[in-house]
């Protein structure tokens, strides 16, 4: 099962002649399968998560959720609940400041509409928040919920995005009451009257004219479902006032700094009074790129002046958490008979749910992150995100790209079939090449259009070559006789970014201790992907020490450098870039002192395994000696530096997915029996962690392909709120898997690295649909590909 290929120092290092190349080519810690820095607490069950945080006299909070998809709250009577012994606070919209905001964990000003209030007079989905309770025990808090009497005026609801955009549909948000904080020009809803949370168009070239040159026009409509992150540690946090009357929030979050800022706005407190602490996080996948429970615990803690803990139940995660946008995506493209792609278009309609958090950027990414995978003369992309009375869709691993790539990579396969071309050959002929400019990133300057983004590294050809060879693409295989199995093979390709171009800041500060160890205080957010380990390896490599000398600190907004958080595949590239800057500065400080002691120029010196080297070889000095000299000797100072990183760039990792499926033609059941995953990530800082990212992403994408969907009844209630009915992949569903890591060095990244976390989420669903077409000759254009859909398609044959 564990089949993993990794060749260190591959890629384009040899031919680059780049000044950085030598350094990248000979690393001692980077590129090693170092053990995770947090391995011990994770395997011993140490209490390191927010869920396990305790305070004396801690209260337990619960939320009253709306039973209606759309309703006005006419009256709330909390007197009975308040009178229950052990209840310490009951809060409704009447008790809280009414501050329009977005919960999206994005830099200020957020690109999401300011359409949310901590509690509102109106509820917009089944599960929306009505009231908060804090009590001595969870049981008392729950009992109190049942004693709150709410009088609702039920309003007509809409669940389908196409209906929601129609004239006369129930309108979810009133633009008069959803204005942003006065005077700000951001935070507007795109078109509240038509329930449009967001809209985007990107054009490049003359699409209509180019389509007229096409020999063949191919069209298709694809649908992707409403799915849950199904993150294993639910949203959870503890808030309390410390002895200085500051608000401390210990939270399972991907975005501590954005949360601090948003908490300040919503609770109308100065930022200086708030401290957000992130312990270990039990998974995020985008569900925690949001302020969710933090203001609930904080408002109750401020009200009661006692510590308050709140944790979503599994039921609440599935009804009132965050989800992936379902979409309807229409593709229309023109090709030449020789297989040259001429024009590519996509129109996606996303379901934003009740609030537009991340809607603009996710629906935009559906085309923006995907269409640039192919060269064409013209592109047309349009995206709409409609409000509906369903739970909130937001950020999820891949961020619009898994939706877009299901449509694009199914569509490309359909084009290849129409041309009678091998889909791999079609892709080879048309995919983006190193040195190309991104057609989705055009900007006009002085009347001239130019692209902001160049693909300076691109290992896609190697992904295709090594992936197809390992898979045996084009080789004969047992196709089955249909009694009952048929087998088929499919593939897909994908790309992503590394951070959000121009919208990132991350890094660390590093401090030398007297034994030659270093504290690395990073603002980056390890949510399980292993960024603390990756950043420790980058620091160790740049400092010339081994991993045992690095002590990692998780984010605490009082002491770590500012960092936008963990999302958009940014931690290695952005925060790692900042860590490298900090470590280079600290190394220079160490060598300056060593140079003085050894009478040698610091530029000619280096540190290897904590030993100071001069051009003559190892000296008698170690980093610990320099530490001692600076803390107690003549060169007295604290050796310490910070480093941060931001860029207009977002280099693309590339991915190729190959799969073989086995379809039971009697039951309609599809099993993926074999998968080859080939990823170009620039540089595998830690090959074990990198392949772990790929395997996990591919498994998640397999659930997207075959089984996962949150289902609703006619009233908008979730019908499958639990792991019994919402099926995520198990060990038995997993194919035999081979992961290939390819390193096409990205010179702007730390030690050549780009990113790995999201891009492998993009290939599995279209590859499975393409393999089913190969096996059965039917095209399934909607996810998940359930047995019912297969049987229906076979019936229609």
């Amino acid at each position, binding site marked *: 099962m*564990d089949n993993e290929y990794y060749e260190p120092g591959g890629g384009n290092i040899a031919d680059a002649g780049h000044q950085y190349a030598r350094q990248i080519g000979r690393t001692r810690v980077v590129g090693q399968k170092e053990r995770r820095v947090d391995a011990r607490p994770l*395997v011993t069950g140490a209490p390191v998560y927010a*869920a396990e945080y305790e305070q004396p006299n801690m209260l337990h909070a619960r939320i009253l959720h709306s039973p209606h998809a759309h309703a006005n709250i006419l009256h709330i009577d909390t007197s009975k609940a308040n009178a229950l012994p052990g209840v310490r606070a009951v809060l409704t919209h009447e008790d809280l400041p009414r501050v329009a905001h977005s919960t999206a964990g994005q830099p200020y000003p957020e690109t999401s509409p300011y359409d949310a209030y901590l509690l509102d007079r109106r509820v917009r989905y089944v599960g929306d928040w009505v009231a908060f309770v804090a009590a001595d025990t969870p049981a008392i808090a729950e009992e109190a919920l049942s004693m709150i009497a709410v009088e609702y005026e039920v309003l007509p609801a809409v669940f389908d995005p196409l209906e929601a955009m129609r004239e006369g549909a129930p309108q979810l948000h009133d633009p008069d009451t959803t204005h942003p904080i006065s005077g700000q020009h951001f935070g507007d809803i795109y078109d509240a009257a038509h329930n449009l949370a967001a809209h985007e168009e990107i054009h490049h070239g003359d699409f209509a004219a180019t389509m007229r040159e096409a020999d063949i026009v191919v069209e298709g409509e694809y649908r992707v479902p409403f799915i849950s992150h199904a993150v*294993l*540690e639910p949203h959870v946090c503890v808030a309390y006032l410390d002895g200085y009357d500051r608000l401390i929030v210990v939270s399972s979050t991907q975005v501590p700094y954005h949360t601090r800022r948003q908490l300040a706005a919503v609770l109308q407190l100065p930022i200086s009074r708030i401290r957000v602490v992130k312990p270990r*996080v039990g998974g995020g996948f985008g569900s925690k790129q949001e302020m969710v429970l933090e203001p609930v615990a904080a408002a109750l803690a401020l009200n009661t002046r006692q510590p308050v803990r709140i944790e979503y139940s599994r039921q609440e995660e599935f009804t009132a958490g965050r989800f992936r946008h379902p979409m309807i995506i229409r593709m229309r493209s023109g090709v030449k008979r020789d297989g040259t792609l001429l024009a590519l278009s996509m129109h996606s309609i996303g379901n934003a749910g009740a609030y537009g958090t991340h809607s603009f950027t996710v629906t935009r990414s559906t085309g923006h992150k995907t269409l640039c995978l192919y060269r064409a003369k013209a592109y047309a992309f349009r995206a709409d995100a409609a409000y509906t009375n369903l739970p909130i869709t937001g950020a999820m691993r891949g961020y619009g790209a898994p939706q877009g790539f299901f449509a694009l990579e199914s569509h490309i396969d359909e084009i290849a079939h129409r041309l009678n071309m091998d889909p791999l050959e079609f892709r080879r002929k048309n995919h983006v090449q190193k040195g190309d400019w991104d057609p989705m990133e055009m900007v006009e300057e002085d009347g001239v259009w130019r692209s902001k983004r160049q693909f300076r590294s691109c290992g896609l050809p190697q992904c295709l070559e090594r992936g197809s060879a390992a898979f045996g693409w084009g080789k004969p295989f047992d196709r089955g006789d249909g009694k009952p199995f048929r087998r088929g093979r499919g593939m897909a390709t994908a790309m992503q970014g590394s951070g959000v171009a121009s919208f990132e800041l991350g890094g660390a500060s590093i401090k030398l201790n007297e034994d030659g160890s270093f504290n690395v205080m990073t603002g980056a957010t390890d949510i*399980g992907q292993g960024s603390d380990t990756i950043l420790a390896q980058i620091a160790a490599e740049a400092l010339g020490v081994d991993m045992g000398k690095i002590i990692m600190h998780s984010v605490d907004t009082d002491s770590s450098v500012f960092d936008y958080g963990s999302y958009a595949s940014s931690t290695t590239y952005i925060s790692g870039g900042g860590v490298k800057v900090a470590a280079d500065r600290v190394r220079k400080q160490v060598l300056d002192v060593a140079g003085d002691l050894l009478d040698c120029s610091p530029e000619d010196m280096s540190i290897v395994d904590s030993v100071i080297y001069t051009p003559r070889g190892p000296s008698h000095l170690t980093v610990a000696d320099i530490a001692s000299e600076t803390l107690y000797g003549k060169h007295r100072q604290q050796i310490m530096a910070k480093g941060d990183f931001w860029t207009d760039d977002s280099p693309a990792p590339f991915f190729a997915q190959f799969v073989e499926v086995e379809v039971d033609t009697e039951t309609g059941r599809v099993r993926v029996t074999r998968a080859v995953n080939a990823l170009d990530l620039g540089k595998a800082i830690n090959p074990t962690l990198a392949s772990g990212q790929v395997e996990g992403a591919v498994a998640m994408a397999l659930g997207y392909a075959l089984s996962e969907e949150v289902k609703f009844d006619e009233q908008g209630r979730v019908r499958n709120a*639990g792991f019994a009915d919402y099926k995520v992949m198990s060990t038995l569903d997993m194919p035999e898997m081979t992961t290939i890591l390819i390193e096409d060095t990205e010179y702007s990244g730390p030690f050549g690295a780009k990113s790995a976390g999201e891009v492998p989420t993009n290939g599995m669903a279209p590859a499975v649909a393409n393999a089913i077409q190969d096996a059965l000759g039917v095209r399934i254009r909607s996810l998940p590909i359930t047995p019912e859909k297969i049987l229906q398609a076979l019936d229609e044959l």
Partner: protein
Amino acid sequence: MPELEIVLTVNGRAVRWHLEPGETLLEALHAHHLKGTKLICGTGDCCGCGVMLNGNSINACCMLAAQAEDGDLLTVEGLAQNGKLHPIQEAFAQEGAAQCGYCTPGFIMRAYAFLQEHPHPDEAEVRAALAGNICRCTGYVKPVAAVLRAAELMQEQ
């Protein structure tokens, strides 16, 4: 007023627990600051709360604490001895089988039960043994490899 008091052995130590009515074994563990055993679904659907009770692998979220009366309970906190990791823990650390780690105690406890019965498992047996354990991070490749590695480490001992 606590309604019930039980005595049992937890990770080799005799303890006396006061229980709330209807308290599950998982809630009782958490109330006594043993939080390594995770609450993930609370409905018996993920095996994230796996512990050993009287030598049997059970889900602590689905059992009343009162039923553990006089029992011998082993949780993930009881595996390491004098600070030295148990071979299963060592294997999970070596193989990078814990990403976010939230599922990990459940996997480790399930593997503990399984390896007692099957000291020389093959991959298919390991996959079958872990079929009820949900992990959202790893795609199961490394946890399965870790259990196979743990079997080797336990042989070497």
